[in-house]
């Protein structure tokens, strides 16, 4: 069997992770997590600080190896060190702070960095860098030094760097939390486009507005799975949301209140524009 024969997916089987600690009682950042992320999924991971989100993110591409259980990427076990580079090429990673992820002195060099390290031929590098810059909309900054770019632009440079490696999966760990509203919008638009083109996304965030864009949501609490389902389901789970401090986005809260006041809105409208459109359509038909 070759690895290509396996249905593309990431499978976590009974995964626990315990950070090495000198104290007597080990602290589990994650405990007994079983999860499958299929190709084409857009999974969002929510949970308070310290709930294990980032630990989970780092298990997907073998930055961390589970203390117990296994993580398999397209059938490749992350414990197998011989497969490390294949796994990491397949699962790209974007972190919170773009400044910590940029190494090049100009944008296109930064994006080429990973490819050069893989020993890819120069003309292929050129083509992939151009393609990646195009995808995230930063082609016009190709020759700019990254430090002169805005936060949102820098984060898109980081995404292009990962994209140039042609990954199947991208894990994004709070990619917008340090950006201003414009930068956040740029990055969100970019990642939604990547998803629509078939890249599997795993997004770690604190923002419910962003989570509502995902196909599936996973809520962690103290390292344990507290919820796994579609966004519309989480909206119904009042008790769980209160417990995990996950406030509904204002637009969704408004829609809830309007339903209570007898306006027949559908149960789940993730974006404010949809709420407005639906309200207008309903009003016209009355």
């Amino acid at each position: 069997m070759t690895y290509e024969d396996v249905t593309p997916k990431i499978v976590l089987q009974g995964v626990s992770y315990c950070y090495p600690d000198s104290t007597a009682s080990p602290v589990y950042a994650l405990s007994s997590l079983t999860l499958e992320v299929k190709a084409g999924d857009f999974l969002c991971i929510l949970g308070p600080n310290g709930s294990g989100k980032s630990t989970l993110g780092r298990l997907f591409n073998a930055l961390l190896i589970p203390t117990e259980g296994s993580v398999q990427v397209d059938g490749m076990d992350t414990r197998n060190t011989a497969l490390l580079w294949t796994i990491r090429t397949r699962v790209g990673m974007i972190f919170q702070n773009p400044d910590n992820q940029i190494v090049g002195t100009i944008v296109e060099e930064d994006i080429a960095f990973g490819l050069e390290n893989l020993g890819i031929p120069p003309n292929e590098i050129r083509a992939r860098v151009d393609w990646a810059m195009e995808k995230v909309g930063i082609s016009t900054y190709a020759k700019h030094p990254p430090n002169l770019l805005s936060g949102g632009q820098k984060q898109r440079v980081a995404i292009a760097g990962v994209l140039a490696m042609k990954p199947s999966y991208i894990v994004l760990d709070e990619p917008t939390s340090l950006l201003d509203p414009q930068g956040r919008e740029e990055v969100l638009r970019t990642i939604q486009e990547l998803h629509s083109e078939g890249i599997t996304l795993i997004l770690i965030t604190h923002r419910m507005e962003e989570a509502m864009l995902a196909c599936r949501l996973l809520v962690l609490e103290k390292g344990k799975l507290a919820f796994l389902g579609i966004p519309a389901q989480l909206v119904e789970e009042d008790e769980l949301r209160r417990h995990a401090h996950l406030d509904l986005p204002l637009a969704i809260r408004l829609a809830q209140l309007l339903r209570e006041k007898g306006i027949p809105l559908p149960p789940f409208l993730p974006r404010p524009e949809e709420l407005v459109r639906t309200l207008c359509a309903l009003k016209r038909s009355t």
Partner: protein
Amino acid sequence: MRIEAEHLTYIYGPGLPWEKRALDDVSLRIEEGEFVGLVGETGSGKSTLVQLLNGILRPTSGRVLLDGVDLTDRRKPIWKARLQVGLVFQFPESQLFAETVAEDIAFGPRNLGLSQQEVSKRVEESLLKVGLEPALFRQRSPFTLSGGEKRLVAIAGILAMWPRVLIVDEVTAGLDPRGKRDILTRIKLLHRNERATVIMISHDMDEIVSLVERVVVLKSGRICRQGQTTEVFSDEESLAGCGIRLPTIPQILSSLVKAGWRLPVSIFDVREAARLIAQEYHHGTV
């Protein structure tokens, strides 16, 4: 404490190729006990302005008066006036340095030459003000705290100086929802109970409208709009001209108004918005 800024101009690197006029003829008056929001795009001059208000930067021209005392008068020592304006920088937790929380908060008051007894009293008091139980936190290392707790300790360090004005710059950036809510609640209480003058910089307009009475909008180093929160956030077009978008609820109301609904725009409370929309839906004519 009353703050008056008169014709403030600040130029970074005057005479250098990268010279930048960060503030251009800004005049502003903030009365004792006000809660003012300072908003604007990245690079609009918000952080420069607040650094001028507490004397960290001296204006290229113009002056700052604190209760009528000129902070920019080079003939007078300004440190006393500066102490009255407590500035909480972005990511203040990166400035924590001591071995215990109590030591960290004590650093400022001790430098004022206060007695050990007085210093300890201020440490306790400041911890209580930010909602951290002194008995539980006093002896802990700042580095074992959560992100939100660290930030509260950094704020306590400022409060221990007994400032009469508190300026917070993006104080919730990067925190989880719970940390965010804790900090905002504390700031609201400080304003209400201690009658502190508070200036808050934020990119989150939903956060701004839920807290402040008056808003100052900066654009390219100049004041673009200012006034009561309800007034400033009632006009989508002029705000857009300043690079600011409406908060969620007014945005929805504004879109409905454009579609012919008769509704006010500057409503920030979700329940009130729901009541008005439902009323218009059931009884209004479009």
